[in-house]
């Protein structure tokens, strides 16, 4: 265990935790916005897969990572429009619709990959971007300020999302339609318009989360996200529908995963013990969810479709 408590290993673990947390954070922030407006999207995983494939394919064909990021966002946004029409215009049950979006995303991303690419082909993805001055700081500089651009974007989105939800008129509308849509409607707030916007933004961020995964890894393959989207939804509950809480949850999940990896690499845990320790992130998430569910409630109108006069 003493091998683990060295500065270099601890810093490497922290850096790995941040990298692992980034896709969760991006997707969970988007889902937070949607859920605060009363819309649950269990299809985050499927949207992430489509965003990941779109970003990967665009980068593979054009060698432009920037275009890959844009395509990831656009694909996610497009899926948001689809999900909005299904749940808001057609008033389909949100939970079931989300699962449908997941299955659609899983199948379509794989189909497109098989038809357009075939064998997994590496791309030059996101390289590290050192922030001037800050990147030169001892210890923390290497860990915090030598990351890829989407890591910075993800963490900067935390205060931005907090400000949007808590300090802007639009954010007030979001909270209103998520808690008492009838009252919001009576005050002239367009419930469905507000929800369309949150779904669009939330799904765009899910697409970006998928893009961050594919571009960080420099590869795509079937089911690349491997459950990241579902964990992101859980992290929204973990974070009690607050951006800072969601960030904390993402970091805990990423850091515990990174710590377990380091322990295994250094031979601190082996065999059955390693397998048991490997379950820590999931067990921790479940425990926190149980605790959070007891002390805080979800948005009152979550999963409830709005229909004027009902």
């Amino acid at each position, binding site marked *: 265990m003493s091998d683990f408590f060295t500065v270099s290993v601890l810093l490497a673990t922290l850096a790995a935790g941040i990298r692992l947390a980034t896709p969760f954070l991006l997707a969970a922030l988007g889902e937070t916005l949607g859920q605060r407006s009363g819309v649950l999207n269990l299809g985050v995983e499927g949207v992430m897969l489509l965003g990941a494939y779109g970003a990967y394919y665009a980068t593979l064909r054009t060698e432009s990572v920037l275009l890959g990021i844009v395509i990831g966002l656009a694909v996610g946004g497009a899926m948001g429009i689809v999900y909005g029409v299904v749940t808001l215009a057609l008033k389909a049950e949100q939970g079931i619709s989300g699962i449908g979006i997941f299955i659609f995303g899983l*199948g379509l991303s794989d189909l497109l990959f098989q038809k357009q690419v075939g064998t997994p082909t590496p791309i030059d993805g996101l390289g590290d971007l050192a922030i001037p001055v800050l990147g030169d700081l001892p210890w923390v500089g290497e860990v915090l300020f030598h990351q890829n651009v989407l890591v910075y974007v993800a963490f900067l989105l935390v205060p931005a999302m907090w400000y949007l939800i808590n300090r802007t008129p639009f954010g007030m509308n979001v909270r209103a339609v998520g808690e008492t849509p009838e009252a919001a409607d009576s005050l002239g707030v367009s419930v469905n318009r507000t929800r369309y916007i949150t779904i669009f933004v939330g799904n765009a961020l899910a697409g970006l989360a998928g893009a961050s995964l594919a571009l960080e890894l420099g590869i795509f393959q*079937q089911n690349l996200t491997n459950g990241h989207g579902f964990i992101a939804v859980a992290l929204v509950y973990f974070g009690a529908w607050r951006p800072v809480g969601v960030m904390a949850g993402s970091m805990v999940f990423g850091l515990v995963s990174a710590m377990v*990896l380091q322990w295994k690499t250094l031979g601190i845990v082996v065999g059955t013990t390693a397998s048991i320790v490997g379950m820590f992130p999931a067990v921790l998430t479940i425990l926190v969810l149980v605790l959070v569910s007891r002390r805080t409630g979800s948005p009152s109108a979550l999963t409830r479709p709005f229909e004027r006069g009902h």
Partner: protein
Amino acid sequence: MTTLIRSLIRRSWPVGLVVLALAVSACAEEETGRSADDPIRIAMVGPSASNDLAFTQSMVDSLNRLGQEYNIEVDITDGTFVIEDAAVAIRGYAEDGFDIVLAHGSQFGGSLSEIAPDYPDTYFAWGTSRDTFGLSNVYSYSVKSDQGGYINGAMAAHLTESGTIGVVGPIEVGDIKAYIDGFVAGVASVDSSITVNVNYIDSFSDVALAAEAAQAHIEAGADVLTGVSQMTVGATGVAREHGVLWFGSQSDQTPLGEEIVVASQIYNWDYQLGQIVEDLLAGEQNGRVITADFSNGGLTMAYNPNFALDADVREAADAVQAGITDGSISTGIE
């Protein structure tokens, strides 16, 4: 054209009337029998993509080669990482009257043990495994993957400069464990002072975790890596980024990094498939365990032609392979 290969990737399964129709079709097949001109119908259910450059692709490639020897018709359902989905596919193929149904994954054994007794005329095969459930229509296939692991490990020991080597494994079972144990033994056979860090990430498919495991190995000083299963595409990406050498297994992983992949152990299931097909053509059901190794051609090595491997290292690797093949070298792995 005597060989007909149709690889149809199925994504969903018919229910109700369609299943009934298939059952009727299977009954008709049973009544009429299969004439010598009819193609042998082989179905495969694989856990990951057909082109995963790993376990599933190794069987797909073998089926393609089998088609050059026999008149076969192949149907593939890949991506069945959910075992229940695989079970539906396996039963569906049996209902559909396929002659041979391959459940290509050790995780499918439980399902197969329930399905196989219901279709005594169908030849089932699964692996990697050493269990036929006592059924004459069930074959299991296995590989002595420790042999290629040993060769890769010996080469890795020659090539490491830091004296630290990293292994990214999925789950500590079957041919995976055998490969990694063989690799560690191969390294030790050259230089027992070399440190080999082994990290099982407990997932066959978590590419991001595999990438971070590779990163952790490199930060621990590794300058040579190896790994098994479809999640290693994440690890090879990190290896490429850091210019760290890579040894593959199951399929030729050269496409994942022509500048870093040294060699790969390849699973050729041709040997096992050939035995099952011959049993079928002879009208015999001799359910048994069929193990592939270097001596029967079930395992081969593929060297990256674009990697400038030192001639001495290659010579040493060839000598180890020859010794394993003729039995003069043992990996020590049971």
